[in-house]
């Protein structure tokens, strides 16, 4: 997909559709779709910097366990451990920096992998995990 906001919207719509087909309820579909949106924004904006020569790929895999979404960009890479904590008092009123935090809050498993070039983020949502996550 192109490195555009249209791709972000398309990935979000696809996530909502696939999550519905995978049996997730409305609340979970919203959370999955938002996590995919945030990851795709990162890929298009922070990764590829809207460069028309660089692409992103978004893959969905539904299984008996749950839904796995993989998003790849062709950017210069990122170090998620170095991102500031958006809940820290000094960061609470910042105008950005909540995307990865929301992805982690809404998905059961989040993995990063450095590519050459780029970054791959894998998001996993297990079936029936909502109550566990909110507990």
């Amino acid at each position, binding site marked *: 997909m192109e490195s555009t906001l249209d791709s972000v919207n398309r990935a979000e719509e696809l996530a909502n559709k696939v999550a519905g087909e995978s049996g997730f309820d409305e609340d979970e579909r919203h959370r999955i779709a938002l996590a995919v949106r945030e990851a795709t*924004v990162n890929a298009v904006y922070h990764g590829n910097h809207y460069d028309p020569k660089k692409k992103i790929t978004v893959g969905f895999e539904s299984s008996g366990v749950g839904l796995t979404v993989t998003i790849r960009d062709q950017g210069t890479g990122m170090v998620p451990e170095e991102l500031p904590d*958006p809940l820290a008092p000094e960061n*609470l009123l910042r*105008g950005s920096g*909540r995307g990865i935090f*929301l992805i982690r809050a809404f998905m059961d498993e989040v993995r990063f992998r450095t590519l050459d070039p780029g970054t791959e983020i894998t998001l996993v949502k297990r079936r029936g995990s909502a109550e566990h996550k909110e507990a």
Partner: protein
Amino acid sequence: MTMKASTRQVNGVTIVDLSGRITLGEGSVILRDTVRDLLGKGQKKILLNLGDVSYIDSSGIGELVSAYTTVRNQGGDLRLLNLTKKVHDLLQITKLYTVFDVKDDETTAVRAFAS
């Protein structure tokens, strides 16, 4: 659905009725421009009615925070009205629910600006 914003005055408070999605791109820009225009006109008591906001992402949350700090830095006040469950949940997760003054009733919210 793209975002729409319309403003009205109630007892010296500017109520901004927002509807649609506040997300990266158009939605965030409309919110930013609306607040900037109000401040430019000297309207510093701003109540954002989010009752018809169906969706918000991290960019939209950031825009709400930026609007809040911008208005406060100019000696004004920005409060929130009628959060949907999705927006309420997002503000709780991000610990911003404690930052914003949030009301469910317009009359109460307008009155709160006087206190």
